[in-house]
């Protein structure tokens, strides 16, 4: 009896988990597609209301969230396959519309940046307003290497990351002596200084910035040419979509690995109580500096991809405002929850674009939407979750 019953229940629960995974994944993809392609103000507002209603429901019925989370844990393989298909096939849904593809690329780049910032803001509660600057350092570094010395995209990547990481260490150093609001001020100052330097140096091109950054090539294939797939041709933006996608995948892997190690746990301890963290033997200064370095490392990668994608960079792409936007993404999406942070990045990258119809009132409406979601989900759209070990 028992021998028969157990496998049957197992099949059923696996089946149910699989259904939940496929259903919810497709729903997310469909919503994203609808939001990107929505062309009337009414459609955009309706979709935002739908999203708000969804999260309102989730706040009311946390059991539903638990079911989805458990299903994804149970049907790991199914989830991986479904998402692989979704993210690889997504560009095909937009035909030859380059604007929509461009939006997607920007969503991916901002997701990487938000994950980078999440190491500090989300995991360790360090307010860093200089992520925009490290993003810029990555972009400028790679652009200069490419333009001045003719380096390829791939060769500039590690150098830009190294330069930004060094900068991360340097702005991390004041965290030895300052904290909270004071540390925030120090990072703001660092961000402003970098912006001013980029603006005033001659070799960075001044306010005009750098132009003509050559598109990356891979085995003779230029990223600036349209992408042929199975007799179908995608606009050249698709190349950068897949490049940024690979970078986001790398960021997620790094974030997860750090989160599931003693490093991520130590960062969480800093967030909760710095004095207690010291008392269990955590080298607080080192872990803070480390958070700055990891943030800078990933942000620089994003900067390199951005520079080679747009092929033109200027100081105003890397202002203090970029850092504030990133912070909003992390807070709205859910601190210390990678999926939440990505969600926040997508939502807040697309929102200003979709609110163009409001022209002068765009920022006002943007602010209202942010506040509304924070009221519906005070802990973020997908809040931080407790760790679990082994079984």
């Amino acid at each position, binding site marked *: 009896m028992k021998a028969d019953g157990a496998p049957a229940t197992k099949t059923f629960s696996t089946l149910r988990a699989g259904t939940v995974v496929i259903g919810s994944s497709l729903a997310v993809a469909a919503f994203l597609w609808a939001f990107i392609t929505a062309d009337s103000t009414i459609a955009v507002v309706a979709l935002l209301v739908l999203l708000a209603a969804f999260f309102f429901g989730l706040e009311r019925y946390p059991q539903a969230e638990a079911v989805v989370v458990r299903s994804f844990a149970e049907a790991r393989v199914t989830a991986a396959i479904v998402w692989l298909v979704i993210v690889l096939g997504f560009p095909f849904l937009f035909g030859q519309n380059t604007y929509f593809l461009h939006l997607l690329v920007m969503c991916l780049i901002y997701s990487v940046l938000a994950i980078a910032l999440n190491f500090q803001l989300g995991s360790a509660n360090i307010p860093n307003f200089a992520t925009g600057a490290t993003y810029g350092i990555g972009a400028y570094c790679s652009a200069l290497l490419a333009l001045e010395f003719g380096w390829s995209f791939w060769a500039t990547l590690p150098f830009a990351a190294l330069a930004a990481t060094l900068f991360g260490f340097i702005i991390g150093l004041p965290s030895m002596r300052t904290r909270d609001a004071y540390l925030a001020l120090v990072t703001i100052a660092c961000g402003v200084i970098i912006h001013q330097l980029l603006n005033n140096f001659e070799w960075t091109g001044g306010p005009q910035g750098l132009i003509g950054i050559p598109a990356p090539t891979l085995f003779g294939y230029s990223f600036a040419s349209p992408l042929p797939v199975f007799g179908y041709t995608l606009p050249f933006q698709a190349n950068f979509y897949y490049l940024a996608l690979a970078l986001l995948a790398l960021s997620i892997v790094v974030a997860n*690995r*750090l989160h599931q*190690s*003693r490093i991520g746990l130590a960062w969480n301890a800093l967030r*909760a109580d710095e004095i207690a963290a010291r008392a269990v033997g955590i080298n607080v200064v080192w872990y803070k500096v480390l958070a700055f370095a990891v943030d800078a490392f990933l942000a620089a990668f994003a900067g390199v991809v951005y520079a080679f994608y747009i092929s033109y960079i200027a100081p105003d792409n890397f202002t203090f405002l970029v850092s504030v936007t990133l912070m909003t993404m992390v807070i709205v999406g859910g601190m210390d929850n990678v999926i939440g942070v990505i969600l926040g990045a997508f939502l807040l990258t697309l929102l200003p674009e979709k609110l163009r119809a409001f022209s002068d009132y765009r920022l006002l409406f943007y602010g209202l939407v942010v506040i509304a979601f924070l009221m519906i989900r005070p802990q973020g759209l997908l809040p931080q979750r407790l760790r679990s070990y*082994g079984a």
Partner: protein
Amino acid sequence: MDEPVLRSLGLTIRFGGLVALDQVDLEVRAGEIVAVIGPNGAGKSTLFNIITGVYGPTEGRVWFDGKDITGRPTHEIVARGIARTFQASRLFADLSVLDNVVLGLHTRTTTNVLEAMLLPGRSRRELARAAATAEGILEQIGGNLFEQRKRRASELAQADRRRLEIARALASQPKLLLLDEPTAGMDDNDTDALIEDVRKLKADRSDMAIVVVEHDMRLVAALPERVVVLDYGRKIADADFDTVRRDPRVQEAYLGSSAS
């Protein structure tokens, strides 16, 4: 006679004009339980803060395990084998009960940032092993902390919070355990349970020294082999409980001012 595990000589610290500790000499031997008592503001917590490197002393030195640790950073001192609890409990409130104890094992784990990124299996296994050890510690400690291990630390009752702080301190297998008013906020039953816990602990780890700051005289009478009395930052007595109790200076400073 063997070397004491903890020794301080002439410890003095001034906060502005206030002399919070004044020429305090202290010796604690391996396996010994010592109580530190004294009126509020006598400098007991400050003594712990200096030993663990939260403050550097204005004068004097501290040796632990034969090494001078004066003014060393806290994480280094803790790694050498000192663990502590705080007077007002300081848990990692938004982490699980289990994670709080796993963090107590921080100095017993080694994965660095590159290993965490490049050898995820090893780093995950290390943390899973730490979690298993932490579960063992939670099972040993009184109360039902083990059953509550997946709750957030902020959701615990007061007595459980104090227990959890002790469990977290024990996780690093310290040679010296510093308990700052462990029974604060506990009722009589909880206090008795705590006394039992500490006795059990002593049986298991006979070479661990414990210094406990305490107000509850039942605990002071029951547990320690030796009682040190601080008053206005000065050490005025250092002997067994009965001798200390009869010391007229102690009675004047301590028992006279508050109810005995």
